[in-house]
């Protein structure tokens, strides 16, 4: 991390497996840096204070709200965003399940839900409905009433178990 003049800093980090170096303002949150400096706009700003989960990303293997992380904190860290969930071969089973179960309407919450769901299934491959709802309680969806989202989560768990 190099501090330049004024409030700018150069940050070296790894995003979706790629080493990257970028210039940020010391005031930038990780969300702002991803969206406005780096151009990865899959993580969304729904509230900017930790209450909606639309900005969910993985930081060093852990689910976090990128609006509640300073950009400067990711120096030397590993970040995975929604853009890093699908592989060159195709969609991740969680993404496929969201499509098949119609688990999105407007889709603004979807990147956050998919990142959070992947984190859930990586840690608890066979969640109950209750566990899935509890894990995802920090991700707001206003369109679906969560029904189809939870079905997609449970169905992705089944697929991944096979």
């Amino acid at each position: 991390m190099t501090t330049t003049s004024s409030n700018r800093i150069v940050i070296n980090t790894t995003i979706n497996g790629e080493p990257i170096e970028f210039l940020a303002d010391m005031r930038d949150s990780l969300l702002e840096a991803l969206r406005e400096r780096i151009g990865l706009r899959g993580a969304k700003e729904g509230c900017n204070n930790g209450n909606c989960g639309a900005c969910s990303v993985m930081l060093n293997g852990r689910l976090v709200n990128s609006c509640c992380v300073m950009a400067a904190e990711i120096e030397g860290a590993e970040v995975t965003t929604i853009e890093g969930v699908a592989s060159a071969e195709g969609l991740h089973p969680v993404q496929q399940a969201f499509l098949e179960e119609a688990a999105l309407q407007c889709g603004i919450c979807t990147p956050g839900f998919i990142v959070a769901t992947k984190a859930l299934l990586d840690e608890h491959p066979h969640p109950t409905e209750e566990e899935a709802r509890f894990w995802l309680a920090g991700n707001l969806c206003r369109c679906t009433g969560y029904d189809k989202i939870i079905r997609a989560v449970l169905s992705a768990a089944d697929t991944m178990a096979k």
Partner: protein
Amino acid sequence: MQALKYARAASVDEAVKMLREGGPTARVLAGGTDVIVQARERRRQIELFVDIKHIDEVMSMRMEPRGLTIGAGVPLYKIYGDAQIARHYAALAESTRVIGGTAIQGRATIGGNLANASPAADSIPALFVLGAVATVAGPNGRREVPATQFCTGPGVNVLLTGEFIVSIFFPALPAHTGTAWERFIPRNEMDIAVTNAAAMLTMNGETVTEARIALGAVAPRTLYVEAAAAALAGKPLTDASIAAAAVAARDAATPIDDMRGSIKQRKHLSGVLVERTIRRAAERARA
């Protein structure tokens, strides 16, 4: 977000130096779940963030015969995810498991919860009944501050410029001791407690040998309700003694009316939650 700088401390001493040089507008950045939002909303004047999460001691957790030490930078999920903690310090596991949601718990810390000194902070009642002690480092070396004496009012604590919490120590609990924590929120997650409570009971057969009761969101700081404990200690645990403890809790509560709850509601909930936590703590003490 107000204009501020970010600095990363590699050791306790470096953190102390940065905080001292930064003065009153320097702030520890632990999980950031309170302080980043406060800086963004300009609710506190902050000019420097000192990130303490690259200090080994701050990030470590140790279970020893004398007790449990949790580094101030350890995120909540590691706390409630630890089987030993869930067993021996149930109130701590219960309170940390519901602070924010999963993503918040990936970052938030009990050091931050305590230092932030919100009257509704969820882990603080647990810290109170577990007899937690904060290890504070500062320009003049280290000192120990019991959790019960740490917060001095809403958003303020005993720390002096240059000081920060390195870790929090939880003494080993006597045999036949049970603890429990509970809060009331209107939703099932992602809410600030209308009221929260924790209880610790040590039992000898059906007799309570020691009791501790704490209550949050009903006063400018978390309450250690001696009168509720006194209603239980040295007596067999009965519906009547539990009811007396609940009444003592209700009487001790001096809540305010705000958008999150009314005086009447909070006073009433004080009794309900104290009763519920006592019953669950007793069950655990007997097990």
